[in-house]
């Protein structure tokens, strides 16, 4: 999280850390992302978090046994105090495109249920009728990702932990006008494709953003009618520029587009 603030324990009880250790590769790959708790067993995250880290366009799912989930976590150094769960099943959206990150959404079913408490609580999903977030409305994103935009993920997962935030950070971001976001990216390269399944958030001038390690975390918005926080987006991708750069908006998976898909998968798999 770039330009964010330190969360207090219990601010984001749905926030979870997803650690992936790909033992099939030598040396083994290890990375992490975030996710959001949806129910006693289901977790929502971005598809690219659970994809084997190959630099090609194939979609190889990491085996479920390589994934560990930590819930109720505040300080990543105190994982033993968190609720730890292994994974029973991973459902990647079948239309996920690793080149464009279109349909970057996945569901993870944990092997064992979790009990709710002040630090562990699910996040609401938008209803199937609900539209995506409106431009200029504010949302929050939390994560344990890079806080220093000058470093890469490799640096972050290396021995120098100083650039990673051990404590959960969060940032408040406005939803970007879809046309502005598209033109922003398309002006830099034709290969960028901001689809209707995505929305952008961030400030024109930069300074506040999500970054490496925040992937899969929920972009949440407050619904005053139900007085609940609702997941509207998933941290998905951004440009190669430094996180928080001017006119480099963060791109998020638009969850409202997948409300029916989520409902079907969770009901059929329960």
């Amino acid at each position, binding site marked *: 999280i770039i330009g964010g603030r330190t969360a207090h324990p219990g601010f984001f009880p749905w926030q979870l850390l997803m650690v992936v250790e790909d033992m099939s590769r030598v040396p083994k790959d290890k990375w992490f992302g975030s996710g959001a708790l*949806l129910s006693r067993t289901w977790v929502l995250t971005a598809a690219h978090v659970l994809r084997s880290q190959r630099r090609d366009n194939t979609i190889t799912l990491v085996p479920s046994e390589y994934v560990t989930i930590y819930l109720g976590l505040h300080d990543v150094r105190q994982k033993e105090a968190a609720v730890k769960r292994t994974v029973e099943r991973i459902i990647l959206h079948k239309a996920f495109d690793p080149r464009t990150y279109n349909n970057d959404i996945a569901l993870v079913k944990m092997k064992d249920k979790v009990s709710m408490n002040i630090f562990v609580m699910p996040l609401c999903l938008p209803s199937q009728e609900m539209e995506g977030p409106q431009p200029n409305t504010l949302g929050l994103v939390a994560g344990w990702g890079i806080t220093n935009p000058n470093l890469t993920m490799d640096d972050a997962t290396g021995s120098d932990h100083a650039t990673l935030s051990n404590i959960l950070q969060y940032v408040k971001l406005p939803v970007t006008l879809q046309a502005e976001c598209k033109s922003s990216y398309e002006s830099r390269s034709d290969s960028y494709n901001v689809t209707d399944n995505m929305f952008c958030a961030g400030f024109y001038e930069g300074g506040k953003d999500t970054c490496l390690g925040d992937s899969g975390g929920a972009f949440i918005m407050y619904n005053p009618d139900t007085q609940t926080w609702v997941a509207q987006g998933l941290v998905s991708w951004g440009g190669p520029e430094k996180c928080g750069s001017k006119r480099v908006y963060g791109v998020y998976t638009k969850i409202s587009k997948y409300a029916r898909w989520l409902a079907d998968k969770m009901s059929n798999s329960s």
Partner: protein
Amino acid sequence: NITELTGMFGQIQSPNYPEGYPSDLDVTWNITVPTGFRIKLYFMHFDVEPSYLCEYDYVKVSSDDDLLETFCGRESTDTEQIPGREFVLTNSNTMTVTFKTDFSNEERFTGFEAHYSAIDVDECVEKLDEALVCDHFCHNYIGGYYCSCRYSYILHSDNRTCKVECSDNVFTEKSGVISSPDYPNPYPKSSDCLYRIELEEGYAISLQFADIFDLEDHPDILCPYDYLKIKTGVMEFGPFCGDKSPGKIDTNSSTVQILFHSDDSSDNQGWKFTFTSIGAPCPVVHPPANGTIEPVQEKYSFKDQVQIRCNTGFKFVKGGDEVEAYQIECQKSGIWSSSIPTCKVIDCGTPRSLEDGFITFHTKDNLTMFGSHIEYSCLALYYQMEPELNTTYTCMENGFWVNDELGTDLPTCQPVCGRPARSLPPLNKR
């Protein structure tokens, strides 16, 4: 000088007829025709010496040692008869004609010429007065007769009386009427009837005889001709005869044999009775506590069934299973098939637990009996009930905890989403 004649007809003449007959004659003609016939004899000519009481010459006609006629003379007088135009008819199928003359005749007498013929006997008419030749119908034919019977009767081996086939009549109904054939018209002769009433063991049969009771009897000997006997396995009633009804007979048996014998005579009205049966009585049953019985009767007897039900909220417990209703039956021994079970209050048992929820008992001592109420709740803050409704459950008579809206289904406690216990700092206006 005897002449045997066996033809169906024939002629006899005095010796030397029509010349004068000799003296000292003693001539006999024995005429025999088949049975079923009689013999008719008539004279065409008769001229025999007359004498007082036919002491000199005469013609005697007899049958079966009975003297039928004695003729002599030329004409009938007060003391002597000539046949004239009359004929002699026997009652049987034999006739003997004897012609006797003495040693002298004062004049010449020409004798006689006679003819005989066999005459069919109409037994149906002639035997009407004798012991009723045929019981029902009589049919005459030349040389004999035969009898026949009304519908449903059969001719006895005596070929005269009509009897009925009534040797195996079985009654298995609990009540009914049995009577002698054709009652109250005369019962058949020469019959031996057997009626059996056979009921299931456990019933006792009673017979109630009708007032009209009429069987041939004897003033001195007990029922020598016709009689009625009632037999059970161990007892015998009767014989009954005469005109006094036996009234009511309680046999105390589930099987009864009625034997009726009639001889070949008499003309009596017979008998009739109504039989009823009652089962072995069982003790009066009383409903169990918190239960009812049906039907409620003053008396119960064999085969009666009583259904026992527990009041709402109570059930029988039999062999570990809860039973809705219970039925007992009065057995032939007079003992109910089973004792009356007790009604036990229904226990819905420990209610099912609710994941991430808890149960509140609304009755003292956390009772789970019929009528008890419980309420499901979810752990506050983190879970909410779904569906949101009154979650009170009542222990019903079917043994289940039932909610007005969900029935036996349980609500669920769903995690509350998007509502952290620790609120984020309020958004600041810029």
